[in-house]
């Protein structure tokens, strides 16, 4: 990563500049304390967005803490968790922001879109309205985020088959139309939670490598190993339940 960041600012690809800004911020964090794992190769800022009560917080708790509670506590404003993943011997620190879905928090949540490299856009398969709002959320990403941000559409609560009102095909079709990857997930039954995050990380890494390959200014400082050298196979997007 150090080599990646050695060229002057003016030559940098936008994606790389983005990484550099984020890395500069994390460099400031390094060395200030001994409470956490300060060693990593990359840090990705991810956001989970979607209507209120689709299960964003539960999804994050399942992924970060492997925990689930059915008690619904509406998120106030914004919160985040940190999780480190490994990909091809590289340590990637994920800073995962959990956003409140309610309209009243829109000003504060969209302020955190800036600098995000990936989004999990979530709806609830038992809630038509949350599915109908996906297009609006997608527009929010385009408005407040940067062009290269990667998005995975997640139809959550797929354990509640009897209450389903949004078909898998509808979800998949919408994802295709919007150019997003798609998974049906369940935080409760731990279905496709890890896979959703892993896929998002893969997409970000792919985009990063793609930018490095196509931008001559970037290749001069290319890392010795690409993060996409042995990308894992694509996961089954549908719900397994």
């Amino acid at each position, binding site marked *: 990563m150090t080599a990646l960041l050695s060229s002057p600012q003016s030559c940098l690809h936008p994606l790389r500049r983005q990484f550099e800004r984020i890395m500069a911020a994390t460099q400031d964090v390094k060395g200030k*304390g001994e*409470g956490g794992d300060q060693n990593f190769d990359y840090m990705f800022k991810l956001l989970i967005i979607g209507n209120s009560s689709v299960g964003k917080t539960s999804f994050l708790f399942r992924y970060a803490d492997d925990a689930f509670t059915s008690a619904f506590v*509406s998120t*106030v*404003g*914004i919160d985040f968790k940190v999780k480190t993943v490994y990909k091809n011997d590289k340590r990637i620190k994920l800073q995962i922001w959990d956003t409140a879905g*309610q309209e009243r928090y829109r000003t504060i949540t969209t302020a955190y879109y800036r600098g995000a490299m990936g989004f999990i856009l979530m709806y609830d398969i038992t809630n038509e309205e949350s599915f109908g709002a996906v297009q609006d959320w997608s527009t929010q990403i385009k408005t407040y985020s940067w062009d290269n941000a990667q998005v995975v559409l997640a139809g959550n609560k797929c354990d509640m088959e009897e209450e389903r009102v949004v078909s898998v095909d509808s979800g998949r079709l919408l994802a295709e139309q919007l150019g997003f990857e798609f998974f049906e997930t369940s935080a409760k039954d731990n279905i496709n939670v890890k896979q959703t995050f892993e896929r998002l990380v893969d997409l970000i890494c792919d985009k990063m490598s793609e930018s490095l390959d196509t931008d001559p200014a970037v290749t001069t400082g290319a890392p010795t190993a690409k993060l996409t050298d042995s990308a894992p196979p694509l996961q089954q997007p549908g719900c397994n339940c």
Partner: protein
Amino acid sequence: MGQKISITNSNNTQDSRFLSFLKRFSPQKPSLDKNMSPRTGMFAKLTAPSANKPNDFTRLISNSISFASTRTKEYLLFKDPEGKFQPSLQTLTQVFLMNYITQSVNLDLTDTFNCTAMTPEQRILLGADWVWAILKKPTKNPKIQIAVQVLHLPEREEAEERATAGKPISESIQMAQMESRNKNMYERIVDFCTSIGKDCYALFLFFGKRDDKVNIYGVLSNNFEAAVGKCDKIDRALIENFFKGSRYFHTPFGMMQTIFTKKTEEALTLMIKFS
């Protein structure tokens, strides 16, 4: 509702002028509030009125807040005679919250007036220790919110800073601090409330203030942002200035009643004595 107290006079007329633009007192006169002594212990539940009318509901909420304040007050001046045991400032906040939450659960208030304690990261990002919310039915979306930041006596805060200096901080806390580095904690809670609108109040809850270290006071406003542009920044001095020259301190009941009856977009600033 209003509890008349001896006025802390400020000779600084500049302060008064400075603050006058911020203060938008409720037009209504504080009502008499003779029954405000909090019901404590097991009798709180036994004597709680049924919340059929809005006023009853307001009283249940304010009783819970008063109860928590009274219990917390008992610990404000605690000092270990041997000087070894020193509870953290966060402990006092937790004492307040534990008492409030216990009381509100006992009174079955949580579906209509809930209390969300912030995570350690949220406390830094949003500047709030907890957020009270009046919920709309049936969506349970917040209708009115009060974001609360607890302030301790400066000498206690300084002592804690000295005690915790050099101790390891978790990675996520460091990250939250990085995210919030451009604003102080007072500005963060005001920013948070301002981003929501006039139906979100910031309440600075003083666990003791300089001239009365054993009681709990508060400054509540949905208009702190008015200070931005008029002065350099929102800081403790600015908030403490609200106490100067204050004629009335509302009770918790008065505070809740005023909030409930206020017009939506109206600016409101209140000083409250909680214990």
